[in-house]
């Protein structure tokens, strides 16, 4: 899974789009990201950010609650470039409407219990955690590239 012969340290995974598979992939990353020199706080940031992006692919690009024989694949490539972790996610599901992740803030929280939001947290977390985010659609493939700055002080309170 890791290739580091003089080249940039890199991790690659390919797996079917499904919630169980996403969980397994994230556990692999948690185990292997220390090889790219990330500390515990950076690994958590990467894990949460990728959880949100991968779940988004499963739910929206592939609409695959339960992966079957026809379920699409997700390719994930992580590499370290200097003081950044660059992750590229590729899938062949539906394109993102509007050509990218929607801009959406958190729903209001000063509401009664019954009106609390149950969703919308994922996008918000992505915006909070990612330092760079770009999306392209090429030849029927969604390509999402995300950058995470490394070497910053431990997570703020």
């Amino acid at each position, binding site marked *: 899974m890791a290739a580091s012969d003089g080249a940039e340290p890199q991790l690659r995974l390919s797996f079917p789009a499904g919630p169980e598979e996403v969980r397994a992939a994230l556990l692999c990353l948690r185990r292997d990201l220390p090889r790219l020199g990330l500390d515990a706080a950076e690994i958590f940031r990467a894990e949460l950010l990728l*959880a949100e992006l991968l779940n988004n692919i499963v739910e929206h690009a592939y609409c695959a609650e339960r992966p079957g024989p026809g379920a699409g694949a997700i390719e994930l490539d992580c590499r370290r470039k200097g003081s950044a972790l660059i992750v590229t996610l590729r899938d062949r599901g539906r394109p993102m409407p509007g050509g990218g992740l929607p801009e959406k803030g958190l729903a209001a929280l000063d509401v009664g219990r019954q009106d609390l939001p149950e969703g919308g947290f*994922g996008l918000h977390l992505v915006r909070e955690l990612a330092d760079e985010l770009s999306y392209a659609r090429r030849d029927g493939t969604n390509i999402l590239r995300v950058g995470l700055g490394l070497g910053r002080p431990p997570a703020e309170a």
Partner: protein
Amino acid sequence: MNLDSSEQPFGLLVTVGDSRIDASVAIQFKDRMRELTAGRPGRILLDLSQVDFVDSSGLGAIVAALKQLEADQTLELAALSPTVSKVFRLTRMDKVFPIHETLEQATGPRANAS
């Protein structure tokens, strides 16, 4: 999804026995919470001490568990790991739930939500 409950002097204690509340168990979590909390008025305390990862789907399921309660029930959280705590802070859900640092603080004689 491994959730257990026990009657305590303060109310109902629900213990999450898994390390992750994520997209793959979110619906199970919500359903199991409904089973465990139905018809138990008063305080419900969710012990998250064994959980080290919550994603947005898991967070949504915890909010859903709150919303499906009756008006005479409350849901409080205890013993969040630093990472789980960060997810609540980033989404401002720490303003919605009473959160206790430890189980003891939540259930002690002078228990007060922080």
